């Protein structure tokens, strides 16, 4: 208890002289603010991308592609294969009495970005009649659903904000003419909104394709995946690859996300290192400025531990302050900032987890920056320190 009171007193004393060292202390605050700001901004690109690309995944849904296909683009499933998959057990039945499954077709549409006027290819997904029952997270926000057999599309909310000419009633260049936008859909997961939805057979007829690209099904329960996969892969009429939806989406996002993470950690790590050297410098000069005060404390019976804690507390406080400022600036500048990254509309996301991670990182650096000066302060012979002017 006595030790704790010593620490509290030493910390209070140290902080009370902080204003006198305002300029030097600012080095830690600004250094950490820059390092954490950079780290959090770059990583917000990665969290935003992951959220948009993989957020819609569920472990109790499975996606089926033709064997050897890495993505939906390289896959092709015939009507016979679709029928064989639908007949497999372990698929849950929907309200319509049919199996909850959707055989999908993919096309592309060329849209103009609102921000810079450049065009980008965006996916158009043709879906089966049970798509909305299979994806309860997706609901129509404005307007109405497309009608099968008509050249109509429903656009995602994210695509609508990023690209021009997406409002209800606009016409979009798609195969066989100009298709009409009947409304906007939104996903409660915030993911998968970069695409357009329409009826699969209509899209296939317009694209003159006889094969689907993929099929997504609702498993009876998440733990039936192995049995379902086994049933499909052992069926001689089928040559398909089966993945959990979560795994599939994570695999698709991995390459780009890895690159973004490497850049984020590299930038943040190097700047953090620089800020740590700055913190060491500041804390060395702080203990040097406080040397008489520290020696006096020790002369009247304060332990070395209390001195160490008071130095650490100061550097920790400054690092925490700087990191919070950095994270706040990153949040203000970049949170919800709209970007189009390889066909996916993403909102940069400075999540609480990311901000806390950045602050913890800075506090660790602050601890290192305070540690060595603290040791030096605690070890310094008292008499020598008191004698020096």
């Amino acid at each position, binding site marked *: 208890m006595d030790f704790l009171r010593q620490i509290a007193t030493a910390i209070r004393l140290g902080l009370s002289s902080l204003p006198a060292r305002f300029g030097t202390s600012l080095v830690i605050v600004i250094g950490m603010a820059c390092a954490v700001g950079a780290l959090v901004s770059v990583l917000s690109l990665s969290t935003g991308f992951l959220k948009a690309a993989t957020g819609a995944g569920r472990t109790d849904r499975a996606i089926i592609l033709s064997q050897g296909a890495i993505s939906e683009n390289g896959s092709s499933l015939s009507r016979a294969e679709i029928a064989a998959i639908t007949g497999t057990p372990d698929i849950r039945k929907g309200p319509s009495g049919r199996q909850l499954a959707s055989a999908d077709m993919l096309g592309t549409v060329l849209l103009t970005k609102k921000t810079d006027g450049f065009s980008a290819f965006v996916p158009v997904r043709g879906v089966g009649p049970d798509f909305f029952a299979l994806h309860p997270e997706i609901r129509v926000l404005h307007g109405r659903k497309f009608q099968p057999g008509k050249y109509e599309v429903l656009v995602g909310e994210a695509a609508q904000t990023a690209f021009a000419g997406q409002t209800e009633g606009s016409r979009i260049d798609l195969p066989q003419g100009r298709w009409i936008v009947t409304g906007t859909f939104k996903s409660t997961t915030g993911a998968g909104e970069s695409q357009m939805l329409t009826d699969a057979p209509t899209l296939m007829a317009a694209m003159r394709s006889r094969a689907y690209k993929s099929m997504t099904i609702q498993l009876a329960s998440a733990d039936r995946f192995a049995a379902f996969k086994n049933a499909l892969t052992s069926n001689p009429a089928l040559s398909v690859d089966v993945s959990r939806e979560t795994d599939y989406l994570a695999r698709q996002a991995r390459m780009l996300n890895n690159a973004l993470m490497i850049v984020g950690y590299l930038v943040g790590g190097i*700047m953090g290192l620089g800020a740590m050297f700055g913190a060491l410098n500041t804390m060395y000069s702080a203990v040097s400025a406080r040397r008489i005060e520290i020696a006096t404390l020790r002369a009247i019976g304060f332990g070395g531990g209390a001195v160490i804690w008071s130095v650490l507390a100061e550097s920790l406080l400054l690092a925490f302050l700087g990191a919070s400022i950095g994270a706040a600036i990153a949040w203000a500048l970049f949170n919800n900032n709209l970007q189009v990254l390889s066909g996916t509309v993403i909102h940069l996301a400075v999540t609480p987890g990311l901000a806390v991670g950045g602050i913890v990182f800075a506090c660790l650096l602050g601890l290192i920056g305070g540690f060595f000066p603290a040791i030096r302060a605690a070890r310094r012979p008292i008499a020598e320190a008191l004698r020096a002017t």
Partner: protein
Amino acid sequence: MRYLPLIWAGLIRRPVRSLLTFLSIFVAFILFALLGGISAGLAHVREASRLDMLYTTPRFGAPLPYAYAGKIAAVPGVTIAAPETMMRGYYRDPKNPIGVQMVRPDIFAAHDDILVTKAQIAAFAANRSAAIVGVGFARAYGWKVGDKVSITSATLSANGGRSWTFDIIAIAQDADYEDLPFFVANYDYFDQARLTDKGTINMVSVRTNDPTRSAEISRAIDALFANSPAPTRTISEKANQQSSTQALGDVDVLTRTVSSAVLFMLLFLTGNTMMQSVRERIPEFAVMRTLGFSDAGTLALVFAEALLLCALAGACGLLAAKLGLSLVRGKLPIGMSSLVVFSWTGMAIGFAFALAVAFGSALIPAFRIRRMNIVDALAGR
């Protein structure tokens, strides 16, 4: 030069402080060099992309008929129209995706930036299962000329398999990118062997005789097929690069933002070091002034100290980045290393920034020395 020992003595007066400041500047300039390298790499991509090279691709994702290549070749201004289709697959493991470009030998005329000899093109045309691979893939997977390589794909071949075997007859370099990964094989062989989508292509590479007319020719090509079941979208390599580097999340803006954060942090950090150092030595400077050093002389001393520290640390950081990258170049993911370009011009710009930081950080301490009153300073007031 005579004053160098004096400047040096100023720096090593507080060795720990100078060393820590040195290290901060050092690591900051490693980062600065890397960011500059990425910016330069993107600029290189923009410069290397051509205006007289057009790409015709499906507008809606459905493949195009092979005959489109012939029709495009007849458009006025078009000199070469080389068709190709992409077979998506992987080597050994789905983690190693490879898009095999199925081409006809005329692709090498359209893409003269791929460095192949006439003999290699002839060998490619003569061997149905021949493949020419880029240095990037060859290095990553250890392929050599003469190797047989199997690529697994979702595309079924007539013999029922999903494995496609190719003979590597040449490993080629791209004139603009050192380790560009590409894999080209014969379209005729592929089209005969595949079961679905026979007679279709994914892309036509088009060369024109006049870069200034590229937009007009693109429109003329797309107009040919506008009312067909498979409309096209034609775009010049340059325009495509512009929109796709833009799509890379405004990397340039991001690197510039981070670079300015680095510089700001450095300016403050070094400025603080100089400030502390000068404040402690006010009496010493007063002595020097008393001994006859001029006003300008003492100022120059402060600037020289900052310059020496920043120039040394900055140069070391820049060189360390250049050296470090050349060491890890072979271990980077395929195609990544040509994205970072370290030119001597870039290094010189980085060095100029180091000097600017030195100047900026010495400004306030120098001002303080100018205002110094010798008598007060000597008295320690």
